[in-house]
């Protein structure tokens, strides 16, 4: 029982952090273009300098 006193809140805090992270990523528009994000990984950033 004594271990539960800190384990349960710990679990809730971790879960809450995950939920917070999800809501933040949602608000910052990370789910707006899922297909684009998957393709953009193929673009090389350093090519920009060649212009």
């Amino acid at each position, binding site marked *: *029982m004594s271990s539960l006193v800190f384990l*349960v809140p710990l679990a809730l805090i971790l879960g809450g952090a995950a*939920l917070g992270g*999800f*809501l933040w990523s949602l608000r910052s528009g990370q789910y*707006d273009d*899922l297909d684009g994000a998957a393709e*953009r990984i*193929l673009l090389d950033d350093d090519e920009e300098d060649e212009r």
Partner: protein
Amino acid sequence: MSCCAPGVEAAAEIGRDPSAEELRLASRDLGGGLFQTDLSVPAVHCAACIRTVERGLGKLPGVESARVNLSTKRVGVKWRGELAPQMIQALAGLGYPAHLYEAEQDKSDPELSRLIRAVGVAGFCAMNIMLLSVSVWSGADAETRQAFHWISAALALPALVYSGQVFFRSAWSALKVGRTNMDVPISIGITLAYSLSLYDTVHNGAHAYFDAATTLVFFLLIGRTLDHVMREKARAAVRGLVRLSPRGATVLRDDGSQDYLPVSEVEPGMRILLSAGDRIPVDGVVAEGSSELDCAIATGVSAPLHVGPGSELRAGTLNLTGPLTLAATAKAQDSFLAEMVRLMEAAEGGRARYRRLADRASRLYSPVVHATAFLTFLGWMAATGDWHQAISIAIAVLIITCPCALGLAVPIVQVIAARRLFENGIMVKDGSGIERLAEIDAALFDKTGTLTLGRARLVDARAEDGAMLRIAAALAAKSRHPLSRAIVSGLDSDTAILLSDIVEHPGLGIEAHAGADIYRLGRAEWALAGGGEGQGTVLGRNGELAASFVFEDALRPDAGDAIAALQAEGLDVAILSGDQPATVAATARQLRVQHHEGALLPGEKLNYLGKLAERGKRTLMVGDGLNDAPALAAAHVSMAPATAADIGRNAADFVFLHESLAAVPTALAVAREAGQLVRQNFALAIIYNAIALPIAIAGYVTPLIAALAMSLSSVLVVANALRLRAGKLPKPADKARPYQASKIQSIVPAE
């Protein structure tokens, strides 16, 4: 140059690129001199496309940044300056045709983010409560159980109050107008389950249903969110289509100055300048100039109409060959278009009366379940006299007969059906459209633009000398006339020929000099010296016949098969057209359709539908024109091709993006199978209830059994929905192709 160009259907064949003024009018003012213009770029689909488009636009003067959204196939361009940069031309040069779309409706969707947040909160709460519940189920001692129940109660509160609102609101709005829907039993179930569990927790009870209540909310919200996402995706795809009605018009002031005004500010009496390729913005009379009009989308007449000073013009028709000055006779809201909108509003009674399957099911379901729960309560009260036990068992009945499976039965099938249709290029705007499509017993088709492509196709070109055909093609390339365009797309042109003094004579044809020769391409009566009655379209060299051409309005691909498939399904197929009866009859013969009517006005199409409805027929209307819009709104269910007029597209339940008419039987097959799966799901839910209900009434339901039974029934319903076979595309090997192509593209520099 693009890797993605093959296979991309030319979206905007007719019509001119919007002018810089129109772009300016369509952009958003971000403040500080910065503007944002959103363009639809249907051809982007890989990393190389993104890079080409973003870089190409970034190099334009005035452009601050450009960002492609691949999911919606759009690009947002931020720019500064007085005039909009030449974005559309730049994109066309890169091989990505772009166009403006209806930006006004394209606000970000607050409902979706609300739903996703609700799912997130409900998921967090449900998972944590389940975690605690597992230890309670496996026999935690009384003290731990009590503590866990309190934590669960605290966790369940946000799930109920925040996430549950979605159901409460919908249930309340239904109850307010004296109806029930699926959300009423859901709301009652979760509220009672929470209240009873809280009461038991306060009084040290052994059973609490917090887990059941929150997982119920979580599962149902997932179904609802998926449903919303799918519909939003389809709507966004429809909104991204080419906007056909002009946003503004160039007005000629009395002092000779020109202003580009939004269409809504054009007043009767104003003089409007129209160049070839413009759409007529408001009803008016031609003041100067002569030209030919393409009325296909407005009235369904496929042959171009010659107009001169004094001719009346209807908003929505397309000016093809010459510049016109137009005197406006009506405001935009009183124009032909507005008349159609009024007819549509008057017609839209029938569909509003349709009640969703889920709502009809809940009308049967709620009274039965609520009466059973109440009788259970009375029975246990009579038997034991212990009101707490009686209430507990009655609520257990409500929870176990939980509408989870029923609540998912319809939406999950519709999500999968909508997704399948989406893969086939068919956009469903409303889940109830799928239900209504499954019920039809008659199908009505418009002709011009629906059964046909609405544009002429060259079927035969004859000439003694092959070089003449190339000259004809070179000459035709200078004109916007639909027949010229057909010649251009049907023949190779010879760019080496020097044509000079090119003049287009509206209503007659196009004339040019090449060295000492005079070429005329157009009506035989005009192009040939000898008159040449009834020879159709010819190329004349110095009055001598050099080449002759035969055209037909091309049928949509698979039109014949699609009609035959619908007839084989036992549907009454008929053609309703605004075009001349003879032309309609010819098309009908070709497609083996018995019933056909020509020269119909929009109101007459409505009457025809009304007569069918009186005989108890449920009709599918497939049409594209402005004149079809009222019929599209009035029909039991309606479909429009992507090339349809804006209001027609908005009125239709389904919009198909590909050219092939096979979309119609495909949609019907998917809808019918979806209807079957929904009925199976209802049957599954009823069987499940038949087994679970006696157990619950007998008072043997514990929270563990409730949680298991609910999850099991939901999984069963979802698994059954996944069996949808109709419209399944063959696992294509070419699905991998664009991906590989994009990889090669990104290795080889695009520039």
